[in-house]
């Protein structure tokens, strides 16, 4: 059974989606989707545990050995991603029913859940595969379902956001396809391990260089790295609350994984640094993203859009870590990836509760929410503290590793910049605190209802995510050690 484990985290949602489409009653479909997601999470966790014990696992689909067939290759890096994505999917589905039910008309709920499972299958497939073309196929599965999920938002602007995302996303995917075509023409193979063996001999080839640039640009479009982030804020703002939670916590993370996989596993890093000053490009773009994203976030009148811009900024931190190119840097990027999923999960989940009650996420309507929804608001603040990087929260751990990695390379301006970025984050989280607790509730005179918390399921998941931010701030072994092991194997450092 253990030998079949690598396929399960993808196969379960892949089978679950069409089965879910056969269920006519939305409640049944929801229960089924939850079961699928939880099983997927369980399988992913077992898989990660197995990888810890016995090292990277390979699985030949169809029984054909790589490079002739498609291979699944699970190591610590994608094991962690699988756990993260399926875990977030389970939480969103388990807790999000009330929110989904409120925002989608009854006849569409079943299809909404099917699209959600397809998105999960696509993201898991991207993470698990060891074949570059298979990666493209699953990328498209996740993208197409994401477009539909974003378009399910109530506002008509959701449609335009989804359309722009579709155009940008497809350009990105086509760029990746061009890159894959180029490396296939050079090497004759599509298997990542095989490519990694064959590409170093082509370090001087201009075609390989062009291929790498196309793949990086394509992935960065999906990652929403500044200045390719234009689709993200609108898509996150207008998508249904649960879709925003899921996308913010997973989609950009999977894109970051693809970036790391291509830069460090497929194209060895020595080769890529030879080809262009990639470090500088990544670090500069990351810094710009941090500052531009945070500055724009501060001035948004809408909290959801503000948090979306904050995601652009946080992606910047991760890319800075990748750009450092050292073991510490990549480890920091991976830790931040994990922790950011927790932070943004908690923040958007809490916001979903508020939107459920208020129907709006404008700052002007959030006044005095601290009294109305004390638990939700407390979770929001906790998530915000984690985002800033307060000691005792998960955010502190990732900022700490980033600063240490920068200090290791004696790039003191980076240390300063990372700290300054945290200050900006503090500014926009302060606006939230101000609105929640320090402004009198409701100037317009309509009597505020006392104590109207979000529905129990939503609230439970919000609290769980907020507490996870504290837990992983105090006991950070899981992300730190997994990320450390993954970074070590990516950079070929023998330590484990």
């Amino acid at each position: 059974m253990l030998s079949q484990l690598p396929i399960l985290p993808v196969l379960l949602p892949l089978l679950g989606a069409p089965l879910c489409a056969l269920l006519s009653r939305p409640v049944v479909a929801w229960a089924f989707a939850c079961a699928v997601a939880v099983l997927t999470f369980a399988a992913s966790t077992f898989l990660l545990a197995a990888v810890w014990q016995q090292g990277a696992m390979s699985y030949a689909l169809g029984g054909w050995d790589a490079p002739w067939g498609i291979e699944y290759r699970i190591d610590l890096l994608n094991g962690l991603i699988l756990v993260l994505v399926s875990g977030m999917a389970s939480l969103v589905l388990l807790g999000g029913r009330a929110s989904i039910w409120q925002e989608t008309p009854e006849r569409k709920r079943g299809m909404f859940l099917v699209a959600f499972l397809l998105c999960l299958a696509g993201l898991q497939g991207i993470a698990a595969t060891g074949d570059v073309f298979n990666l493209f196929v699953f990328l498209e599965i996740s993208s197409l379902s994401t477009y539909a999920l974003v378009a399910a938002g109530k506002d008509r602007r959701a449609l335009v956001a989804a359309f722009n995302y579709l155009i940008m996303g497809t350009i990105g995917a086509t760029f990746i396809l061009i890159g894959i075509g180029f490396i296939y023409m050079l090497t004759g193979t599509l298997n990542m391990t095989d490519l990694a063996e064959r590409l170093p001999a082509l370090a001087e080839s201009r075609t390989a260089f062009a291929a790498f640039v196309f793949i990086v640009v394509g992935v960065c479009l999906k990652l929403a790295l500044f200045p390719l982030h234009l689709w993200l804020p609108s898509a996150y703002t207008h998508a249904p609350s649960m879709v925003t939670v899921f996308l913010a916590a997973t989609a950009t993370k999977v894109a970051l994984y693809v970036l790391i996989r291509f830069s460090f596993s497929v194209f060895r890093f020595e080769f890529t640094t030879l080809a262009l000053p990639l470090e500088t490009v990544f670090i500069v773009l990351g810094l710009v993203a941090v500052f531009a994203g945070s500055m724009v976030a501060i001035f948004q009148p809408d909290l959801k859009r503000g948090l979306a811009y904050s995601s652009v900024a946080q992606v910047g931190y991760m890319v800075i870590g990748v750009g450092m190119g050292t073991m510490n840097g990549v480890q920091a990027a991976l830790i931040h990836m994990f922790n950011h999923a927790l932070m943004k999960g908690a923040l958007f989940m809490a916001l979903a509760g508020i939107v459920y009650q208020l129907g709006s996420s404008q700052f002007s309507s959030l006044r005095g929410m601290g009294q109305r929804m004390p638990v939700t608001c407390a979770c929001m603040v906790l998530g915000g503290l984690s985002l800033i990087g307060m000691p005792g929260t998960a955010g502190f751990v990732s900022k700490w590793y980033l600063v240490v990695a920068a200090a290791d390379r004696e790039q003191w301006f980076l240390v300063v910049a990372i700290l300054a970025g945290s200050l900006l984050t503090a500014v926009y989280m302060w606006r939230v605190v101000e609105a929640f607790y320090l402004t009198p509730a409701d100037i317009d005179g309509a009597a505020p209802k006392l104590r109207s918390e979000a529905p129990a399921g939503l609230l439970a998941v919000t609290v769980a995510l907020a507490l996870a931010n504290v837990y992983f701030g105090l006991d950070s072994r899981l992300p730190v050690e997994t990320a450390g092991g993954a970074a070590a194997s990516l950079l070929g450092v023998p330590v484990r």
Partner: protein
Amino acid sequence: MEIFVDVVLLSMLVATAVALILVRGLMASIMLTSIYGLLSASFFVTMDAVDVAFTEAAVGAGVAPLLLLMTVALVGRREERTVSRHALVPLLLVTMTGALLIVGTLDMPPFGSADAPANQHVSPRYLQHTEAEIGIPNVVTAVLASYRAYDTLGEALVIFTAGVAVILILVPGDGRGTAQATLPDPISGDRQGIVHVVSKILIPFVLLFALYVQFHGDYGPGGGFQAGVIFASAFILYGLLCGLPAVVRVIPPTVVEVLAALGVLLYAVTGVLSLLGGKNFLDYSVLASDPVTGQHIGIIVIELGVGICVASVIIRIYYAFAAHLDRQRV
């Protein structure tokens, strides 16, 4: 001679693409897209990619223009002459990308060379071993349905996702379903017209041809996807002639949705059978005592799954588009 045909086709492709940039108005653009699809299909034939040519002809010159036409029937053929504030930005982006592409070609293996790495490393094994391992002459089908069967499962899932997405986007949530049989049919001409009669004669043959393509895919160009598209086109033709309600009476949308899911499941469950048989996912050798027979059975079954899925999804997408069109016109 081959080079001559090659150059002529490529020049026509360039001319079509340039015309697409110059032309204003969506109707003309759609016709040019269709021509582009047909030309590229012809180009694929000269490049020996017959399966791809078949698909591109069905999709690029058939389904895509059909969906575009239905959209334009709603939104109108007008195309504004946009005076962009940043007219230079797109030009700059395109120039940069193009320059990078040209740089990329410089170290490429020469065109048509049998020694190019792409034609050396992995693919010769497919050509040499297909006969012994899979036992069918069409190597493209063998790679598609067995060596890289998982990609094709992904492909079926992509088209299924498209169906789900279109339903989620287009079907209204307030109970105005697809099949309102009371709607006046949009293109009702005289029932005895030439188009009507000829099409009614042709539809059975179209269906027959789809079945031929479906089951002959192991030996010649064709397979589940192409067959699915052709099968769906027969229904779409019927719908265009007699109106949406008529075709919905033949096969209601809910049935189509169930069939689409079943098509994907047929494929995936074949893979699960391999798992139950103790082999890896999609290893068809467990399906029969003899591995080669097992492969053959597996390929037939999964091609059928793809065919059912593709046909149903395309019919469902057509329903969604046509129903939306009807609703907006009423």
